[in-house]
């Protein structure tokens, strides 16, 4: 029972790290790509876009945060189910909305609030299930325990 609680807590911490890195990374990428302008789907257009991306500090910073997201995602997926981590990570959309209201004082539409509510209910539903069900994870756990 204590190990189950410990598993839930460490999964929650890693999912939160994932969410924060993904939210910040996506924001920086969107801003960086908007500054670079629309990508033309031709050889010269793609080359120009690659140059713009390579020289944009905003995009590099976004990539750094997305690397942080990937590291925390890899870590949590070493013990938790993919089908548990993936929907739980969607809490980031709810976080983005809360930040938009609280920090940026933006007005949020009713449709968006309903979306946030659906995400929160969905995350709670997924959160009620066992974080680890796959045989691969259990066999790794047994192997580690026997060491």
């Amino acid at each position, binding site marked *: 029972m204590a190990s189950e609680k410990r598993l839930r807590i*460490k999964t929650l911490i890693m999912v939160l790290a994932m969410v924060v890195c993904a939210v910040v990374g996506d924001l920086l*990428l*969107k801003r960086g*790509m*908007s500054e*670079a*302008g*629309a*990508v033309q*789907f031709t050889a010269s257009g793609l080359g120009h*876009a690659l140059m713009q*991306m390579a020289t944009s500090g905003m995009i590099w910073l976004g990539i750094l945060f997305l690397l942080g997201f990937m*590291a925390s*995602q*890899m*870590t949590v*997926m*070493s*013990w938790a*189910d*993919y*089908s548990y*981590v*993936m*929907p739980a990570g*969607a809490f980031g*959309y*709810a976080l983005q*909305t809360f930040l938009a209201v609280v920090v940026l004082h933006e007005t*949020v*539409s*009713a*449709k*968006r*609030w*309903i*979306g*946030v*509510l*659906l*995400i*929160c*209910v*969905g*995350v*709670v*539903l*997924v*959160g*009620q*299930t*066992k974080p680890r*069900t*796959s*045989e*691969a*994870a259990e066999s*790794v756990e047994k*192997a*580690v325990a026997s060491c």
Partner: protein
Amino acid sequence: MLTVLLLFVLICGSTGGEIAISHGAKRTGEPKRMRPRELLVFIGRVMSNGWFLLGIPLMAASFFALLILFSWHPLSFVIPISALSYVVGALGAKYILKEEVNAARWAGVILVCAGVAMVAAG
């Protein structure tokens, strides 16, 4: 037509990549302690795993599709459609990773998928 193709690459690339990396991470085994050095060693071991090497090109293709779609369309178009990856991912988890996706988890995945689409469209 190109937009549909890029959306396909976005959804299947990210889901396929994450499934491969998830499988690779589980085969590596979780880090015993959450200390920076042990985490770095763990990440190094995952990154040298063949499943990770399969997942990265898939995720890179998805990433570039996302960047191009962001430059062509508003976020409110790209994200709602990409929310389908939650359902595709749950199917992959059940049939490829053999995870137990019970009714509560399915309900959660579908609610999250609908919620993400509504947040982005709103």
